[in-house]
């Protein structure tokens, strides 16, 4: 795989832009995909990588710009269109039918039939077995997808894409749920595809992985392409520089206030996983009033699950939590909120907002009893609280009676934060609070976090963004594979230490221990 010099360009994007209601996801991007090579695409959360790939795969249509496939302008009206042109994609979020067998999933919409139109199950399973064989995953083609581990499901997704015999294969974070051994197998498969002249577009957050298998690298930041190079000419520092840019992010500065007494403590929190093992593995931590404790970890490290346990969303979790030194005996979310806990969930659409209700109704949803005398909601009090939150959090909304779904992502996030704050929490749990929101809103959110900590709230916030955790936290906890693998003061934490701690127990390191 030497002579990576000038491989033929098979696909070219020219000045591609994509605008969603409210946000610009991709701005005038130019991107080239070369044959027989691994074309790496890298960028932070929300930089527009997935959108760009969905445009190539025909899932989304660009708002402006041209797509050239082998020099010829094309436009895909659906993903089936793109598949017909030889473009396959492994999606980040799994697009599998849990209620069907592995073979049925691999051949979904291209079922092999006999003369009478009856599906030839035997043939499908035999062919599926060949692809699965190459992935050495020990998956039988007649197994139901929902019975597989997430990692195995990801392999099925990969087998499905490989089975398309695509000329261009897009892989969006294909290793996010794979064990070290499975990653090795995937890399062998990729090398094999490369040798056969397939163009691979590879997206990942894991820099070491990219450097190992990439031939060309393209960096995206805030929807723009900021760098395009041959991999052999670049190093980690170059990538990070392109990703973050010279204009450092607007993290609100620490104001030097000192944290107070311990306000929250978690002891030995455990959460069993449905497939065996522990999703949260004996985690204990303590938080002081006015302190921001960042929890860093990769996807699947158990950060969100830890928060779920603290909020009492899993009846079968074990361990104890204390607020202000008093043990919290309530086990349900409603009463834990009353005790002073509040969660800003990671998935705004599914868990944060009731999208068909108004901004005002969403803001006061968690705190209605505070505005009610007996059973009557006092409209004036409610309106006053809504106005106060809109002002304090700088929510851009003409009229709070507007449906919350009409706001931009950043403003929606502020509504979720406002909803939590109206319950007057003592401890705020924020799960990826800056995910999928624009730069300005991010700065607002960070500023709000600073202000709240100054007011004496304890903040636990989980993120997979190194800069964020380094810039905002007073202390940093690192989670990996459900365990707490490190706890550092900001002064002693370095990126290298955090990354090392986050890779303990899993990750793609070739000599890393195998995940249970």
């Amino acid at each position: 795989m030497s002579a990576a010099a000038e491989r033929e360009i098979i696909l070219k994007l020219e000045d591609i832009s994509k605008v969603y209601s409210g946000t610009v996801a991709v701005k005038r991007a130019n991107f080239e995909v070369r044959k027989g090579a691994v074309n790496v695409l890298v960028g932070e959360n929300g930089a527009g990588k997935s959108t760009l790939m969905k445009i190539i795969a025909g899932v989304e249509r660009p708002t402006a710009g041209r797509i050239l496939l082998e020099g010829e302008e094309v436009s895909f009206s659906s993903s089936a269109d793109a598949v017909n042109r030889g473009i396959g994609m492994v999606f980040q979020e799994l697009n599998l039918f849990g209620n069907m067998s592995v073979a049925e999933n691999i051949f979904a919409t291209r079922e092999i039939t006999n003369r009478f139109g009856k599906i030839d199950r035997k043939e499908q399973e035999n062919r599926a077995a060949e692809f699965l064989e190459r992935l050495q995953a020990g998956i039988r083609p007649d197994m139901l997808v929902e019975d597989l581990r997430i990692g195995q499901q990801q392999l099925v997704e990969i087998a499905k894409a490989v089975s398309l015999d695509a000329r261009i294969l897009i892989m969006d974070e294909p290793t996010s749920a794979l064990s070290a051994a499975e990653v090795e197998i995937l890399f062998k498969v990729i090398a094999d595809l490369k040798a056969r002249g397939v163009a691979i577009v590879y997206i990942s957050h894991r820099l070491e992985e990219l450097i190992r298998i990439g031939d060309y690298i393209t960096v995206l930041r805030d929807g723009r392409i900021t760098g395009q190079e041959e991999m052999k000419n670049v190093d980690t520092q170059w990538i990070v520089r392109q990703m973050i840019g010279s204009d450092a992010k607007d993290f609100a500065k620490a104001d030097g206030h000192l944290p107070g007494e311990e306000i929250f403590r978690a002891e030995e929190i455990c959460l069993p996983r449905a497939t065996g093992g522990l999703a949260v593995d004996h985690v204990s931590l303590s938080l002081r009033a006015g302190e921001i404790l960042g929890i860093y970890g990769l996807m699947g490290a158990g950060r969100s699950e830890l928060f779920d346990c603290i909020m009492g969303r899993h009846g079968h979790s074990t361990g104890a939590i204390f607020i202000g030194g008093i043990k919290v005996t309530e086990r349900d979310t409603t009463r834990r909120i009353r005790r002073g806990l509040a969660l800003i969930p990671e998935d705004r659409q599914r868990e944060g907002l009731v999208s068909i209700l108004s901004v005002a109704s969403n803001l006061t949803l968690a705190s209605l009893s505070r505005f009610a005398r007996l059973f009557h909601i006092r409209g004036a009090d409610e309106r006053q609280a809504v106005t106060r939150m809109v002002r304090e959090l700088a929510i851009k909304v003409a009229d709070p009676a507007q449906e919350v779904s009409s706001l931009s992502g950043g403003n929606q996030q502020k509504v979720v934060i406002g909803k939590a704050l109206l319950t007057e929490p003592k401890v705020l749990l924020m799960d990826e609070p800056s995910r999928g929101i624009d730069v300005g809103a991010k700065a607002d959110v960070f500023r709000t976090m600073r202000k709240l900590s100054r007011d004496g709230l304890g903040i636990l916030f989980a993120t997979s963004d190194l800069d964020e955790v380094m810039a905002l936290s007073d202390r940093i906890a690192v989670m990996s594979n459900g365990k707490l693998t490190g706890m550092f003061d900001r002064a002693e934490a370095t990126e290298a230490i955090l990354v090392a701690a986050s890779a303990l127990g899993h990750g793609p390191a070739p000599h890393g221990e195998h995940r249970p």
Partner: protein
Amino acid sequence: MTDVPAKAATPSASSGSVLLTLMKLRTFIALIAVLIFFSIAAPNFLSTANLILMSKHVALNAFLAMGMTFVIITGGIDLSVGSIVGLCGMVAGYLVLNGIDLQIGYTIYFNVFEIALITLAVGILIGAVNGLLITRLNVAPFIATLGVLYVARGLALLSSDGRTFPNLVGKPELGTTGFGFLGAGRLLGLPVAIWILIVVALGAAYLAKYTPLGRHIFAVGGNERASRISGVRVNMVKMFVYMFSGFCAAIVGLIISSELMASHPATGESFELNAIAAAVLGGTSMSGGRGTIGGTIVGAFVIGILSDGLVMMGVSSFWQMVIKGLVIIVAVVVDQAQRRLQSRVTLMQMAKAG
């Protein structure tokens, strides 16, 4: 008729907004249209006697439809209301005639007020069974209430071996007289049933708009997971809506028995379908989260007036069914069109705002 509190179409005079306003008022427009049509086409339609008679018919469906509206807003469905009507009628009839035999040679008879309370309690209890099946045992609402539909109807038939409890006048010496008041009595010139409807409807509308529970009902239907994380007691909210639906059905059972002075075990068959139709016609979304009590009442009136008016015009009952079906379908089609238009207008406003 969406519940988004007065998401007023901005006064920009674009044709989109005007059309949108018209579409939002569609049930009301339909009501006025059927009123005007029948007052011309059917003689005596506007006479006071006829209007009162019609509103009594409508009231029965309106009670069930209100209960159904809350259930549908939470994203569920209650198929059992018709059977609850039948069973509650039988309970009331049985109590008037037989009282409760304590098996020790002594029988308790209740007065009419107590009978009404017991009957309402039975309706609420069956609603609670629905709620428990759905929240504790995770049975899908469609299936749970379908099961209860059969069980309750079966119990109603068993209670009398399929016979009617006739002649519920009661005996003065037992203090069980006066059962006819609910169905035939009048206050200030209006039937008692209408007064009850007004009270329950105002109560339900108040609940929907001004109480935390009401807000929670909409939140649960809009996004159950988000509601749970926000501390809404989702199971309690669901229990309430099914119990309220059972309560409404019990009222209907009482009124019908009282009107006829007899309880028949087959009373209320297929009432649940009319209730669903009224709710949907009034703008309640089957996918949950949207709906209003006012809209549902108007929907019940449209359906009721339509069928009574067609009867007065002498249209065959077969054609009546066809027309009723078409009206429901048109209502939902317009509803969908309104949603699309609404989101387009919103997007345009956002684009204009930058």
